[in-house]
């Protein structure tokens, strides 16, 4: 997850060091190459169809081929494939990136 923060100076006093109020805003986004999960087609910054809240409760996971999916989505796929699951995007053998 990549996080960024920005601040807004609210006081307009004469010297730059003279803050009297500080308003911090933080945002986060998953640092994946794609914007949507190739399995459920929902945004990575959203969550899989089974979850309500994005973020740590519905994490992304990478394969050794570097393709990312919602953990819950890829687990459903891996569990439905025996004996060996392949990456839905590139068909290489699916291994969780260590």
């Amino acid at each position, binding site marked *: 997850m990549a996080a960024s923060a920005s601040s807004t100076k609210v006081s307009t006093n004469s010297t730059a060091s003279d803050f009297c109020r500080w308003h911090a805003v933080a945002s986060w986004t998953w640092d994946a190459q794609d914007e949507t999960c*190739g*399995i*459920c087609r*929902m945004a990575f910054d959203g969550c899989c169809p089974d979850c309500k809240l994005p973020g740590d409760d519905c994490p992304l996971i990478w394969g050794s081929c570097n393709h990312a999916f919602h953990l819950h989505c890829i687990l459903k796929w891996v569990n*439905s494939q025996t004996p060996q699951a*392949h990456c839905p*995007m590139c068909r290489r053998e699916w291994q969780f990136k260590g």
Partner: protein
Amino acid sequence: MVDFARVQKELQECNRDFGVSGIKVIPKSEANLTQLLGTIPGPLGTPYEGGTFNIDINLPDGYPFEPPKMKFATKVWHPNISSQSGAICLDILKDQWSPALTLKTALLSVQALLSAPEPDDPQDAVVAQQYLREYQTYVGTARYWTEAFAKASSLNVEEKVQKLVEMGFPEALVRSALESVGGDENLALEKLCSG
């Protein structure tokens, strides 16, 4: 449980590029998103050119972790498609399915299959033999079937319109209903009855 959010998204995305791809997917009824009708144009430069092929799509409970069930509703003469049942022999609809594929990409693969028959892995042995032994006869038969079954020739459409108008539906509604279901008379009737 079918992931209906994804199906809705797929339908919107697929129908948005209809102008470019000529590929359409519509629900057979608004109430049930597991029974769909796909439409593909016959590829240019093949005996299927000029035809519009309807494909019955049935989404299994596990979709998109299981492949959609597809079969031709339009009769077609092709080594990898049953001339009797419309069953399609295509690996991505079986063991080569991936949840990253969509209804649209699957229909594109079916369209590609029309351009590139695989007679050594037949679904219809009679067609495959003809393809291998008397290629020109195969081309002729395939072209004739396209003409006879895959073209909503103007005469046919007018007959259907008249039949439905005689049942008491306004002509403009009948035409738009027929168009939206790819010319299938029964589906158009269902649509008209459901309002």
